[in-house]
């Protein structure tokens, strides 16, 4: 495949887009219908979350626009006040579709930032451990080992509890989202560190690193400019699967009542609210946020699986 690419490239100049489109990764993407559907679902959900303020039919967080008389309207029907709700309304008369749009916004925000945080921390510690070796390596990897033997949700819970104890109560509500991001990020860095360290130890032996050392390139520059790009493939895979994990972890924490405050509900909080009405027959308050969460987690997971097969890095 690469030889034909070279010959066609010699005949006529191709745009960057064409080259990406013809690459191995996108070739396997076009061949897998499941992946295309997963990518589409992910894209639509992210887009809907980003555009929530413009496409949501109601503003669920503006107390002035809420009316308790709108409460418990079933899906696809009008309330007593004459308002129409596609997916029904909850106990406070909030439109379920709008709360889902805003909720997935918070879920995705926390998921993305927590994964970025875990990634930044894991990559830097992994590069350091793999490049320096010796005691530095032993200490960092022992910590990672111990942490990996505990479930991430437990560690996130613990960090959340500590933060609650340290932050004064008046500021807790405003900082809850950030505490959540740090807690989930800190709970997930070890996976990145372990992979990056392994790949770095392999790269360190190669000639291009020795050459860079010989001509006196600063170690930090070698790591960031030369080693890092070569270890990025497995990192991308872990980051994608990590995003799905982070979204589920955030939902779990919020469901347990230790996540974001009810004034800023994420998908997990919405499910927690909806659970209260399961027995009284108002299933839609629970059902639609739950389906959204499952779709999001499943789609991102499938994307991660595909990426792993497509890039085929040495994982684990």
């Amino acid at each position: 495949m690469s030889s034909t690419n070279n010959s066609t490239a010699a005949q006529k100049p191709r745009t960057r887009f064409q080259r990406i489109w013809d690459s191995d990764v996108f070739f396997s993407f076009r061949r897998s219908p499941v992946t295309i559907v997963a990518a589409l679902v992910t894209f639509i959900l992210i887009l809907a979350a980003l555009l929530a303020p413009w496409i949501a039919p109601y503003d669920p967080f503006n107390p002035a626009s809420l009316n308790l008389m709108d409460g418990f309207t079933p899906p696809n029907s009008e309330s007593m006040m004459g308002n129409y709700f596609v997916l029904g309304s909850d106990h406070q008369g909030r439109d379920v579709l709008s709360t889902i749009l805003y909720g997935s916004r918070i879920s995705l925000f926390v998921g993305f930032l927590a994964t970025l945080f875990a990634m930044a921390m894991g990559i830097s510690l992994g590069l350091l451990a793999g490049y320096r070796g010796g005691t530095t390596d032993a200490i960092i990897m022992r910590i990672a080992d111990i942490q990996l033997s505990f479930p991430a949700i437990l560690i996130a819970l613990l960090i959340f509890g500590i933060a609650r104890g340290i932050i004064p109560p008046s500021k807790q509500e405003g900082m809850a989202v950030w505490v959540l991001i740090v807690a989930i990020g800190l709970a997930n860095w070890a996976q990145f560190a372990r992979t990056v360290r392994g790949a770095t130890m392999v790269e360190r032996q190669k000639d291009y690193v020795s050459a860079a050392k010989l001509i006196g390139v600063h170690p930090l520059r070698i790591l960031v400019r030369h080693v890092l790009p070569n270890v990025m493939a497995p990192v991308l895979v872990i980051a994608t699967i990590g995003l799905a994990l982070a979204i589920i972890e955030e939902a779990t924490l919020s469901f347990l009542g230790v996540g974001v405050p009810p004034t800023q509900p994420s998908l997990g909080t919405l499910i927690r609210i909806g659970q209260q009405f399961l027995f009284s027959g108002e299933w839609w308050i629970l059902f639609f946020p739950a389906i959204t969460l499952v779709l999001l987690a499943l789609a991102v997971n499938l994307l991660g699986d595909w990426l792993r097969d497509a890039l085929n890095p040495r994982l684990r």
Partner: protein
Amino acid sequence: MLAFILRRLAQSIVVMAVVALIAFMLFRYVGDPVASLLGQDSRLQDFEELRERLGLNDPFYVQFGRFIANAVQGEFGISYRLQQPVSELILSRLPATIELAFASAIIALVFGLSLGVFTALKPRSFAAGLIMTLSLVGVSLPTFLIGIGLIYVFAVELQWLPSFGRGDVVRIGSWDTGLLTSTGIRSLILPAITLSLFQLTLIMRLVRAEMLEVLRQDYIRFARARGLSNRAINFGHALKNTMVPVITITGLQLGSVIAFSIVTETVFQWPGVGSLFINSVQVVDVPVMAAYLMFIAFVFVVINLIVDILYFAVDPRLRIGSGRR
């Protein structure tokens, strides 16, 4: 083998010491223990007296030493929220969590093993494909959604099983068991299934992968050539050789099961240690958090140790390997 176990024991002690240090820092520096014990309208003098009495003015290492000494005796102070000794609280909640964890481990092991063997022996059958697809979905679903789904189907719609609590319990010595009453057993079913599903899929996929690997080996072909019955080959030879990874994963998962039970216990309002922990996190009840942390770490360390020792019992190759080293 003795050297191996001693080395493992030393590692476990280091892990416990690190966890104890974290628990102590939590205990000592998160929130103010004096302010939590005294009311808002106490005099400054009372604060100072209590501070002195609790030994909070002593140097760091003296306090840490005292914390360890107390922890070894199972003494973790008094819960800020419930005003009861933490050790008593945890002990009274422990039977519920242990019964739940073991019930789910048994479900996971029995169904995981049998489904794993089935999908490996008949990999192309329709049922095997269906089971594999379902297991993929099961892994992606968060635990609490599975629990809610089960509640909706079996408690709300069909009304077969209760959706919360432990039912009636019988007290045997200091152990409250729900296994002897019919309401207790009925209450156990849904939470145990919820907790077991993740493990079940894990064990099933592992057994299947290992079985497929082993069934390709020469000694299996030779066993067939010798005319052994299918049953003897599949279970006596193939399954036996998949047991090492299965024991590892099951053992290590038992620890996460106790931690995961936090979620299950919340969904089903199960009165176990996990729900005690989640309530203490919500109100920053530091002594309970510290004690739970130490408790979970202890469980993990003990399980890891047992799994390591089990290796030797199951796989003779390891015994030879360690002898040469």
